[in-house]
């Protein structure tokens, strides 16, 4: 049981990691990771009227997605999508639950329609005019592995390219105290089931149910704190292996549900 898929583009954003290009030195270990505040994102793919209605989490997801698609956003409509987020939109949950605790329960209609877990997927489909399958899922702290497997199996079985986006953002108080995420982080990957001219690496994945599996970590302690501080940032060891353009096949082990593991072998072209 294993699947092989091909990655043609990748992007990430996190505090101090503005883009894939800008993050190379940190990912390769040539520079120490230094945490900086994240800017506010303003995805260009969103029409201005939609941008006003969206939240910071939706903008984070759409920003990393459009970075992954690249300069020609018109190709976005060829991709099916998998949007993977452990927690969804804590900011909206906070606003909704606060409103519901007030007399007359003044829930805002915009907050309500933004409250669905697939809000980023929906805004992306509208902005990209993408009419194919859009999935939206959660596997709590193991959401990155679950989203990547879903995307890989989708592209393999349906023979259609897929854009996978994983993203999560810290909660405002008082939710932050019961569910603490350390920082915002998002990652996106374009995957296909067969090798194309623009394929960068082959990813071969299988699952491992051994109990004493050691998960891959980031050697840079600050970067590893980021990895553990956000479910989407569990991708960091894989992103480091992708950045390292070695001739040999490398392997990473990412946490998967119920203490199992996703093994990924990375082969560069």
């Amino acid at each position, binding site marked *: 049981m294993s699947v092989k898929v091909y990655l043609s583009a990748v992007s990430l954003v996190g505090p101090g990691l503005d883009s894939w290009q800008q993050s190379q030195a940190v990912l390769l270990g040539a520079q120490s990771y230094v945490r900086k505040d994240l800017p506010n994102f303003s995805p260009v793919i969103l029409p201005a009227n939609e941008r006003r209605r969206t939240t910071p989490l939706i903008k984070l997801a759409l920003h990393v997605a459009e970075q992954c698609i690249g300069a020609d956003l018109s190709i976005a409509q060829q991709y099916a999508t998998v949007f993977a987020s452990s927690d969804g939109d804590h900011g909206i949950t906070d606003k909704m*639950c606060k409103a519901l605790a007030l007399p007359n329960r003044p*829930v805002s209609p915009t907050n309500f329609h933004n409250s669905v*877990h697939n809000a980023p997927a929906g805004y992306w*489909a509208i902005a990209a005019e993408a009419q194919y399958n859009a999935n*939206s899922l959660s596997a*709590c702290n193991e959401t990155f592995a679950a989203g990547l497997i879903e995307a890989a*199996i989708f592209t393999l079985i349906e023979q259609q390219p897929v854009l996978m986006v994983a993203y999560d953002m810290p909660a405002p108080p008082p*939710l932050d105290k019961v569910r603490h995420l350390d920082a915002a982080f998002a990652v996106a990957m374009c995957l296909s089931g067969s090798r194309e001219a623009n394929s960068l690496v082959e990813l071969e994945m299988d699952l491992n149910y051994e109990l004493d599996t050691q998960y891959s970590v980031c050697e840079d302690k600050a970067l590893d704190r980021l990895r553990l501080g956000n479910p989407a940032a569990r991708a960091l060891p894989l992103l480091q292996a992708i950045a390292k353009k070695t001739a040999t096949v490398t392997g990473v082990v990412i946490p998967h549900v119920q203490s*199992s593991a996703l093994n990924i072998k990375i082969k560069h072209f």
Partner: protein
Amino acid sequence: MAIKPLTLSCYTVTNALGAGNAASLSALQQERSGLRKNDFTDCDLDTYIGRVAALEDIALPESLLEFDCRNNRLAYLALQQDNFTEAVLSARVKYGASRIAVFLGTSTSGIRETEIAYAKLDASGQLPENFNYTKTHNNFSLADFVQHYFELNGVAHVVSTACSSSAKVFASAYRYMQAGFCDAAIVGGVDSLCLSTLYGFNSLQLISEHKCTPWGKNRSGINIGEGAGFALLESPNNLNPETLNPDNLKLDNGTPENKDELQLLGYGESSDAYHMSTPHPEGRGAAQAMQAALDSADLNATDIDYINLHGTATPSNDSAEDKAVVAIFGTHTPASSTKGWTGHALGAAGITEVVFGCLAMKNNFIPINLNTIEQDATTKANIVLQKDSATINKFISNSFGFGGSNCSLIIGRKEVLLC
């Protein structure tokens, strides 16, 4: 090319009609709605709801108490109906704990716990100490709970694409099985009443103060319901037909239902790419999902005997879905929405309506479009308003959600080769 059919080797629903398939079947046959005047705690909206009785009194087992919330109580109640638990435990012996996938849908998970916690903020604005967000409200809670209940550790996730959630899980399950990542899958979904959806849909002016009337002349919106449903999917090659589908259901006339094997024959998924909370007015994405389902089943529209509509009873959904249905199936295929029985169970609507279709197919009737007296004259689909017996060999079930997320599933009897 057609997909390889998967057998629904066990399935169950729990909703406002009661716990288990027999309660839903008798209500469907006797045309008895489960909707009641809104009596949900802390909610003063003038509407009808589909509430599951006595959920407040359900106690989770000691070992699973950290998952305690309305949504997981409803899941727990549903898992104990129709020998579903026994079926999964025997599948676990057959395949192993890591080879049974868990793909479930929900739209709001255990958000009711967070609503209750926010109503109890202390003087310094903190949430109560005993509130466990991760095990109740986080979207994965439902699948995590079910994995713990059955002691499974295979692939799992929760799909949350609003009202298409528990339909899309069937497509995921098919793909994972094809890719060799599981041998069987528990699919389905659970959504439970909460203030977020009641007041949220109310803020969009989509809640009806009457019992909902899908496709009705004066339809005025939805009734929110809650429900849970599960199906165990397996490859037909791994099954012994003699052991399938325990005879726990009887027809009105006392004869046992037929023992045909029911299978997932096709699925179609699409995105409207139009608006977050309003369907494409021509039903573009809905039609794409239905056509993709037919294509993946290698069937023609004329092969379908019954359409279970999404049919929420909002003016815009029914009008858009009508156009899509007519574009694909024309105006003859019998169609009905079963929201008049249960209300709109949101993330559990997909599995609820797949199981309703299975019950209808096994018992040779087409559920009427309950509560609707007169069909909206601007719609053209063949809406079933009068009870009739009918043989259904294949049906399609539609589920459409916010974010323009569409999914259609085709279920049929296993083809019997005549020698």
